[in-house]
């Protein structure tokens, strides 16, 4: 056996998906570890945003909660929680949102609320937190979750956060304000050993695995008949590249309120699942070293779809493992 386990592999695989300049909404647990790992390895200028209000935090040690003082002390700005959700998360200013899941279904919908009924649950889970709006509004969503039949279920007990919707066809994307400056350093994007992966085409694009054909490059702007106040919400802020792509269902004010491309990646202890470009059904596209398709199937509560050509996820490098251990030991970056 190697000197890493499946939890390490999950964190490393997630970290590799972050690129320099990405604005990343970081929650407690594995996302926190993955995002800080990215900052210590290939993406030092990945911008960490914590829902506690810290924008562009540069924690010196791995924070133990999303409210550590180190986050506020090292952030460029600290804003109130309402402002964080209205002006930053809800407005679509997050490139990458990480989510966990107690249950996930084949269309990337997530339950973190209850097992059993809401009124009288057998297991009360923590609840929604920031997840529903991150799931809706982040440019792309990466789910980190261990794969098991109890977690990968045919039917959720409760929909806390929407992936592609109950039938995979409910997600509609909207325009979102993209940053107007490019990443501040010259390091090439996707500098990790895998590159940014298939979901990471362009700094702000949702990538080819999104819900349909993506419009590329600069989206048309200009007032589209919305009166004197500018272009109105349908075109608001549609300046940057990529994320404006409407998906096969079309965009517009009657859409389902989602802005981003949805859960473009589910990273598990067995490998990586991505939505099928046509149906949005989560499809196993990559496996970790030593894992078989059969293992993955057994760990899935539905008849798992597997890509025709499945890749192996490169194992953690020595650099990645060292950084991971340093973070877990709460060493400072300089130590």
């Amino acid at each position, binding site marked *: 056996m190697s000197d890493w386990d499946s939890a390490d592999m999950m964190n490393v695989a997630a970290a590799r998906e972050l690129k320099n300049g990405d604005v990343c909404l970081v929650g407690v647990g594995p996302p926190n570890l993955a995002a800080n790992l990215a900052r210590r390895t290939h993406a030092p200028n990945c911008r960490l945003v914590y829902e506690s209000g810290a924008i562009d935090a540069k924690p010196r040690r791995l924070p133990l909660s999303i409210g550590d003082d180190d986050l506020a002390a090292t952030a460029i700005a600290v804003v109130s929680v309402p402002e964080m959700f209205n002006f930053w998360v809800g407005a679509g200013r997050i490139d990458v949102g990480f989510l966990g899941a107690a249950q996930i279904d084949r269309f990337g919908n997530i339950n973190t609320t209850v097992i059993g009924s809401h009124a009288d649950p057998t297991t009360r889970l*923590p609840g929604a937190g920031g997840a*529903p709006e991150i799931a809706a509004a982040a440019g792309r969503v990466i789910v980190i979750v261990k794969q098991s039949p109890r977690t990968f279920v045919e039917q959720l007990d409760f929909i806390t956060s929407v992936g592609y919707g109950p039938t995979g066809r409910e997600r509609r994307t909207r325009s979102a304000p993209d940053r107007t400056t490019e990443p501040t350093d010259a390091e090439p994007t996707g500098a990790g050993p895998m590159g940014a992966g298939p979901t990471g085409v362009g700094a702000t694009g949702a990538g080819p695995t999104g819900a349909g054909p993506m419009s590329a490059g600069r989206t048309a702007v200009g007032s589209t008949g919305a009166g004197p106040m500018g272009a109105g919400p349908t075109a608001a802020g549609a300046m940057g590249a990529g994320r404006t792509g409407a998906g096969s269902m079309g965009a517009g004010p009657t859409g*389902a309120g989602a802005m981003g491309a949805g859960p473009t990646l589910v990273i598990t202890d067995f490998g990586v699942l991505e939505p099928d470009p046509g149906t949005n059904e989560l499809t196993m596209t990559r496996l970790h070293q030593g894992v078989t398709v059969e293992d993955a199937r057994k760990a899935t509560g539905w008849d798992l779809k597997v890509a025709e050509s499945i890749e192996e996820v490169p194992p953690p490098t020595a650099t990645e493992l060292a950084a991971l251990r340093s973070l877990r030991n709460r060493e400072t970056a300089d130590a």
Partner: protein
Amino acid sequence: MTVPLADAIAEHVHDGDTVALEGFTHLIPFAAAHEIARQGRRQLTLVRMTPDLVYDQLIGLGVADQLVFSYGGNPGVGSLHRLRDAVENHWPHRLAIHEHSHAGLANAYSAGAARLPFAVLRGYRGTDLEEQRDIISRVTCPFTGEELAAVRAVNPDVTVIHAQLADRDGNVMLWGITGVQREAVLAAKRAIVTVEEVVDEFPEHTGAVILPNWVLAAVCVVSNGAWPSYAAGYSVRDNDFYLEWDKISRDREAFLEWAAANGLPPQKENSHV
């Protein structure tokens, strides 16, 4: 301008009140929460984005009938066992749950602070949280026809927060992660603030929130009043206690021993249920 914490709680927190104790990981008003329990308050509706240990304790003590919240975990550790025991097993009694997302509850406080009956946000769509129609609904934009989420305003009877500083006039200053405290205070009918200390003049702090004395009902000096949470510049988070709580709270007997050792009386009866 300051009053003893016990007096502030006695005067302003009543049985049956809707009470919000806010503080997002940082500046959680634990000392005030314990004083509420110590004085035997009951049948409270507790509001808080992240119940955290502070509400796990109050719920275990039987202080609350209802909980309004958006994320109920022990951050970085795991479950809130007293909260789970109340919801799953009705111990010590039934706890009614009204739950939001962070975005929803933050906006509900903001609407309350503006004395608006509801707030609009782009959220909740497609989630089962929307089935709580008494607190989450929809409105249609009169200009574009887009349908958006609406949340009912939250207006606590009492909001309690912990802050770093008061000045001699009873104005209050907090900084660091300030969460939803300003909105929670302004949404409340009465607000109580515990502070680390009183100073002649406030220092400069980017990101600080200042609350003028005339929106506050009481200011109380309670040094280290956020423990095991923290006050930036005064203390650090007692992460060990957060871990230890996982053990204390898992077991009803261990929890009751902890309560007894800390002079916190359990409320056994609940006349409402």
